[in-house]
């Protein structure tokens, strides 16, 4: 007798695979310019930005899709988008 199977799924990272692969441009955080306002962290839709102990943001490139929101929202222009094609 077949056991009942349900259409249920456990949560976890990478539902869509390594979404970092989708990127065609890449955010580079220039820590020197960063004022630790946290806005890049706030606005990342993935989320692919994490803060270190000091409060500095870092990008998790495994998941970052390269949308560029963080760069656009950064008040101190501390994030640069660099093409993945170069």
């Amino acid at each position, binding site marked *: 007798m077949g056991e009942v199977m349900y259409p249920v*799924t456990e*949560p976890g990272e*990478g539902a*869509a695979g390594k979404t970092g692969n989708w990127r065609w441009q890449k955010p580079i955080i220039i820590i020197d310019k960063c004022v630790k306002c946290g806005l890049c962290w706030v606005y990342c*839709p993935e989320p692919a930005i994490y803060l270190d102990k*000091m409060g500095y943001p870092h990008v998790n490139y495994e998941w970052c899709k390269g949308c*560029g929101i963080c760069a656009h929202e950064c008040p101190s222009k501390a994030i640069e988008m660099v093409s993945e094609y170069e």
Partner: protein
Amino acid sequence: MYRPKIVENLGEDEWIYAGHPACHGCGAALGLRHLLKTIGKKSILVVPAGCTSIIAGTMNAATFNIPFIHTAFGAAAAVASGVAEALSKKGMDDINVVVWAGDGGTYDIGLASLSGAAERGHNILFVLDDNEAYMNTGIQRSGGTPRGAWTTTTITGKKEEKKDIMKIVLSHHVPYAATASVAYPLDFNRKVKKALGIKGFKFIHLMAPCPPGWRFETHMTIEIARRAVLSGAWILMEYENGRLRLNPPSSNMLDKRRISLEEYLMMQGRFKHVKRELLEELKRDVELRWSEIKEILEKQGKQ
């Protein structure tokens, strides 16, 4: 360990896993992230067909780290009614039941079930994730698509007005209803929290721009959401027991200190074809909405 104030306020726990299938720069995904941060793990999320059916992940991995149920397109409010009543029967009234539905699932196919649930007053928070078209099926017009907007089924621009869903919901005398924007996550966070503290049917209308659907570049999502507010096209407000209050920055905009509507519309491919005349009409529509609000506030002031 240093944390900016905003991070502390929003909280560092994440209930949405990265690596989800949303497009680059998806406003809905960001909205979901902040919604889940606020409702936390003692919550059940109910979602009808729409982009979030995809964002939710595959059977390999689910995006949301809280119990989650997909529903038929028109059924979200009703499924949530069942969830809420069943929890209550089990004495688990402390679990938040939250619907997250697209504009299609709210203004159109889901309107009767929304209205029924609101009338019956189930203990639900209904969040309308408004990206102003059927995005998941490839950008068709919905009742929530604004006048003039291009979609694949209104290639010369939509002729009809965006339905006034807030008025429709308020007609049901719900205890709490508010608007929000992904550009203002603290405001959204506060409203979700407030809603969860109130018993009954609550409604939050979140504006969440969609890069492919609105035709703008992916880094502009927040910028556009912000300009919607700053131009007065999208007004941050809340109704508690029918009493209206504006929220910042909209609360500072009664005296018309706003950016021009073009600065919002013209950044979006979907409005590129809009002619002067229509633009003037759209501006008038915005003014009208503001004058209505002014009246309501004045009336309330007198009371």
